[in-house]
């Protein structure tokens, strides 16, 4: 009664009963400890008939009024589990105690159902009663579940795949093995097979039960892993791509610029940077609409990509602003690529209603030449390309400007 009340108050977490719970648990714990010590040391502390008189010779009783040794041990453990529930050890100890006493109570009940007296009491000692076994089973379950936010029980309460697996598989294993054992004993009692055959049949049945369950767990883990890999790949793609054009975004361009600057300094390999800005793109959006503007941006992205090598990087860094990174190019190659891009952009035709849109672009380019300068950063080289772009804009747009950056060149 005391432990049941303590369990209720502990599970509910009601602070008002905190001290009452501790006192009740301590009383039960001390009582159980006193009885258990009587079994261990063989003395009589006078606690057996403390409340009621019981005549000698009662069924299953050796010492009148005394609880069974396994019962006292279970209550001792339950008391300890409840006292430790809110301490740092409670997260592990309390559910462990719950499991141990729960299994002990379950064994006692199985003993009653199967007639195996050793399962609910030792020979020549008082035995555990059926209601006591049920009570201890409930206390064990209660200890397992009273702190679901701490320790190993967090997994059971988790909404994740692990929690779902545990909630499904643990009951299946427990009930499955219990059922198989009952069938094995029933078959033996009916004379269908002997002890050895029964043991091997049970072993085979347990293997047949557990192997598919473990397989299922493995399959679930495999599937979760595959889903995680797909999600990680998609997340990476989303984090480095522009959703409209599918080109790289500013973040990925920055990473690549850091890499190219490192290669320039270490291996003396030059790289080029082109900043492409569509001329009067705002007018396209204002007159033809944003859908037509988006279609034009997609076509521009395709045109740029078609004219470049696989090793080049094209990024959309603003509304109508693109940056092209060309590893290992010299000034001559940069000029050729720029002219090719301008020609390709002028060939674009996007139909919007009755009108046809043709983009014009300004391109500002730089070539970062070895040995480079350690003060150069992704932002500073982008700024240098931007300055070239504004030179083109200032000179009437639809054209290109380029310069080489070498060591000590102010950026």
């Amino acid at each position, binding site marked *: 009664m005391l*432990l049941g009340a303590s369990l209720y108050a502990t599970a509910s977490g009601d602070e008002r009963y905190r001290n009452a719970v501790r006192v009740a648990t301590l009383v039960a714990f001390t009582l159980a400890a006193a009885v258990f010590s009587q079994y261990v040391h063989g003395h009589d502390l006078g606690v*057996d008939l403390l409340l009621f008189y019981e005549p000698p010779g009662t069924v299953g*009783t050796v010492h009148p*009024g005394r609880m069974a040794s396994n019962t*006292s041990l279970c209550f001792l453990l339950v008391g300890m589990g409840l006292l430790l529930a809110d301490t740092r050890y409670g997260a592990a100890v309390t559910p462990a105690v719950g499991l141990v006493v729960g299994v002990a109570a379950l064994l006692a009940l199985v003993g009653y159902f199967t007639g195996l007296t050793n399962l609910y009491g030792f020979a020549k000692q008082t035995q555990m009663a*059926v209601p006591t076994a049920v*009570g201890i089973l*409930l206390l064990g*379950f209660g200890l397992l*579940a009273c702190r679901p936010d701490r320790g190993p029980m967090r997994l059971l309460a988790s909404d994740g795949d692990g929690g779902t697996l545990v909630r499904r598989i643990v009951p299946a294993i427990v009930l499955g093995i219990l059922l198989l054992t009952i069938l094995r004993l029933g078959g033996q009692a009916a004379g269908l097979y002997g002890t050895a055959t029964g043991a091997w049949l049970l072993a085979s049945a347990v293997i047949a039960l557990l192997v598919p369950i473990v397989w299922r767990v493995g399959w679930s883990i495999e599937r979760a892993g595959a889903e995680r890999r797909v999600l990680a790949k998609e997340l990476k793609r989303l984090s480095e791509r522009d959703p409209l054009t599918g080109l790289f975004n500013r973040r990925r361009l920055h990473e690549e610029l850091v890499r190219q600057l490192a290669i320039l300094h270490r291996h003396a390999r030059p790289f080029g940077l082109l900043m492409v800005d569509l001329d009067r793109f705002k007018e396209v959006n204002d007159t033809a609409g944003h859908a037509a503007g988006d279609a034009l941006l997609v076509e521009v992205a395709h045109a740029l990509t078609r004219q470049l090598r696989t090793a080049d990087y094209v990024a959309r860094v603003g509304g109508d602003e693109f940056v092209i990174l060309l590893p290992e190019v010299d000034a001559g190659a940069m000029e050729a690529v720029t002219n090719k891009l301008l020609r390709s952009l002028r060939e674009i035709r996007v139909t919007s209603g009755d009108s046809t849109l043709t983009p014009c672009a300004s391109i500002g380019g730089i070539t970062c030449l070895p040995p480079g300068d350690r003060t150069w950063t992704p932002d500073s080289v982008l700024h240098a390309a931007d300055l070239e772009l504004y030179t083109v804009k200032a000179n009437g747009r639809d054209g290109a400007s380029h310069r080489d950056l070498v060591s000590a060149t102010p950026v």
Partner: protein
Amino acid sequence: MKALRRLSEVAGIATSAIGGIAMTGWLLDVDVLKSVVPGLITMRPTPRSC
């Protein structure tokens, strides 16, 4: 998580109820309340109070 905590509370109440029923059995000397099935082992006075 809330359901588990609730089940734990119910287990505590049920255990106390079992103890209470057995206590009544001892007070009124009714064997069926002490052992559920007459003839089986009765709950001892000390576990009932535990």
